[in-house]
């Protein structure tokens, strides 16, 4: 039902490609053919952006007032400078005649049809009477703006070589191996594979809920079911290593799981996948896993109810830590070379800090395994204080009382919009600007440089302060879509909109990630972890989507539910997977 929405969108997007559009204005094509390879190069020196981060326009003296050469009027909202002769004309003020069009028509040999909006640096065709777009012109505008701003390539970005796609199917020998080494699982349509309850071992629903989501995370599931981490082989290898170096090496008690066996969380995960996908439908007890996890995360090891998100991070960390280090160069952060946990969940966030005095922008990249989002701070509690931390940029809310609140539904898209919007760093958070050589007020903006295969969104519903008494849970409903397009939050999109949506390749030669992103920015929801009840006495439940049917996983109890139940649920962690896994070389898409 919900999948039909997506097809329309996918084929609709032109996505900033304007080659079909330059041909739509014959006068522009004519102008380009008359004016050589770089028709707008001369204009670049006439453009200026003021103030830093503002809009581009034609440069002029502070006292200079552009006027229409025909009527002398300086007040029209649109004044155009002819690119050929630099004369300025107005265009249809208050619906009146267009002196710009008259100028174009008055030239018997043509060539004066193209003009530039004096205030907005937009091209205009006076003959077609419409705004037009040109890649070279946009490049000139952007270059005039970033002459000041660039901070060069950040050091912590390494260019990646893309692996070529090679299609594969098993040969006779491989097929024989596969048939002999595995057993086909019987699969009924209404009882999908891998659907199995997890016993609550005592306040462990926080763990069960995340495990259910991970057991059905497609790339993770495929990895373990393809025997990419064979627990028997791994333990044998570890036993051999420990034997060679000597017992007790590698962290002592932490590494030895009690009986000389090396601790490897990935092995326990492998065992769990085997058990859950075995076809046995009796609820599984993840006891060994709990035991291993408590050894890895000893400060979280207690009978108390825990936070599911904290467990999620700890588990990924555990898989990462215990995986054998790859020989050779150190893994580059954010690209998931190190372990399957990062290969699946790791993305890269970009942070830009722009000095508001000179426009100089400093960029850093950081890997992340999920995105934690704040709910909008619009509720007012009984004590009259606003919930959540106040944004530096918010005005009335910060003072504790807001009389102009319109109660609208919070949405995941809204949270992502806020996550990537430019945020003014207040005067108490001045940033040292390399160009000005002083601390200046700045504007900070986040964006996503590289999307992970699986995006986990964590909603910050639990607010903890210093004293436990002040912790509270935010129960407010958050709408989340079943299909999510992450394109507006990519660094390429954010940068582009920062420069007025000009057509320009902002990420330069780091194009690999960018190209990959643009093809695979569409995500599909497959798991939702929900929390119900109070902060300290709550319950976690996971909803899973298998074969387009939703199931509720409440510890040992698996039931089928209507998708409406999921839409209406109080989401705490939402898991989205890339809809298509895209291989650049072949341009073939295969559904995940």
């Amino acid at each position, binding site marked *: 039902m*919900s999948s039909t*929405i997506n097809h*329309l*969108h996918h084929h609709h*997007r032109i*996505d*900033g*490609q304007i080659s079909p*559009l330059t041909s739509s204005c014959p006068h522009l094509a004519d102008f380009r053919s008359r004016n050589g390879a770089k028709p707008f190069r001369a204009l670049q020196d006439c453009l200026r952006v003021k103030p830093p981060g503002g809009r581009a326009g034609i440069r002029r003296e502070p006292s200079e007032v552009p006027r229409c050469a025909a009527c002398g009027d300086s*007040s029209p*909202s*649109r004044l155009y400078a002819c690119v050929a002769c630099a004369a300025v004309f107005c265009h249809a*003020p*208050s619906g009146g005649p267009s002196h710009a069009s008259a100028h174009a028509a008055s030239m018997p040999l043509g060539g004066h049809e193209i003009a530039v*909006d004096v205030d*907005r640096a*937009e091209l205009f065709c006076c003959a077609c009477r419409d*705004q037009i*777009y040109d890649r070279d012109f946009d490049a000139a505008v952007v270059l005039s703006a970033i002459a000041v701003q660039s901070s060069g390539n950040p050091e912590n970005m390494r260019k990646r070589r893309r692996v070529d796609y090679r299609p594969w199917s098993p040969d006779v020998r491989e097929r024989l191996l596969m048939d002999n080494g595995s057993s086909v699982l019987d699969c009924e349509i209404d009882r999908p594979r891998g659907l199995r309850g997890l*016993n*609550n*071992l*005592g306040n462990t629903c926080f763990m069960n809920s995340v495990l259910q989501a991970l057991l059905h995370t497609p790339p993770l599931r495929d990895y373990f079911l393809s025997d990419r981490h064979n627990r028997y082989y791994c333990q044998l290898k570890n036993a051999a290593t420990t034997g060679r170096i000597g017992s007790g090496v590698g962290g002592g008690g932490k590494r030895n799981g*009690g009986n000389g066996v090396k601790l490897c969380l990935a092995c326990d995960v492998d065992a769990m996948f085997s058990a859950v996908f075995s076809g046995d*439908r*009796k*609820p599984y*007890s993840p*006891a060994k896993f*709990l*035991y291993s996890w*408590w050894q890895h995360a*000893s400060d979280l*090891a*207690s*009978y*108390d109810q825990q936070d599911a998100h904290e467990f999620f991070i700890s588990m990924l960390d555990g898989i990462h830590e215990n995986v054998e280090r790859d020989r050779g160069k150190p893994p580059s952060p954010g690209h998931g070379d190190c372990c399957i946990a990062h290969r699946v969940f790791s993305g890269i966030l970009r942070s830009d800090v722009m000095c508001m005095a000179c426009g100089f922008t400093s960029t850093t990249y950081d890997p992340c395994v999920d995105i934690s989002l704040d709910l909008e701070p619009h509720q007012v509690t009984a004590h009259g204080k606003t919930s959540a931390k106040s944004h530096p940029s918010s005005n009335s809310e910060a003072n504790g009382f807001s009389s102009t609140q319109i109660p609208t*539904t919070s949405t995941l*898209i809204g949270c992502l919009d806020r996550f990537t919007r430019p945020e003014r760093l207040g005067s108490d958070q001045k940033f040292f600007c390399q160009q000005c050589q002083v601390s200046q007020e700045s504007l900070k903006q986040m964006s996503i440089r590289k999307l992970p295969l699986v995006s986990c969104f964590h909603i910050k519903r639990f607010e903890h302060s210093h004293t436990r008494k002040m912790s509270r849970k935010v129960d407010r409903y958050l*709408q*989340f*879509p079943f299909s999510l*397009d992450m394109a507006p939050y990519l660094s390429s999109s954010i940068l*582009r909109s920062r420069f*007025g*949506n000009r*057509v320009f390749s902002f990420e330069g030669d780091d194009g690999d990630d960018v190209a990959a992103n643009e093809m695979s920015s569409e995500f599909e929801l497959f798991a939702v972890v929900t929390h119900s009840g109070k902060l300290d006495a709550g319950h976690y*439940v996971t909803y899973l989507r298998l074969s387009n049917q939703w199931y*509720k996983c409440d510890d*040992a*109890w*698996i*039931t089928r539910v209507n*998708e*409406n*139940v*999921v*839409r*209406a*649920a109080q989401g705490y962690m939402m898991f989205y997977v890339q809809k298509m896994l895209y291989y650049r070389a072949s341009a073939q898409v295969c559904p995940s």
Partner: protein
Amino acid sequence: MSGPNEDDNGKLVKFVSFWLCIKQLSSQLFGNLLNSIIADVASECHRIAKLGLDRNLEEEEEELKLSAEARASVADVAAETNGKYVMDIFGQTHPPVANDVFDCMNCGRSVAAGRFAPHLEKCMGKGRKARKATRNSTAN
């Protein structure tokens, strides 16, 4: 009429026409500013639309609508949390506290699944209670 009244009238006329002129100018100024702002927005939206950069608002609105309908139709959200006495999709029922028994991998004792975590906590010496117990014993 002549005398002081004529002067007053003259001044009044001058004042009123001056005032009307100001009104007209400020009205024009406001109109120009407004036109300029409208042209700004139109230009930006035109660019976004022509270059295909607009977000698929139809999709987003569709999702919002589906969520609103879902919330309205799901009458009793609290009913979700009753789950302990239902039959699952495989036709099984389970006790509220899992009673599968297996051996503890730390000490070897038989433990019921639903009580494994509290057992393991003491068995491994983790958690607040266990730490308190050891403190007491070492104090002696």
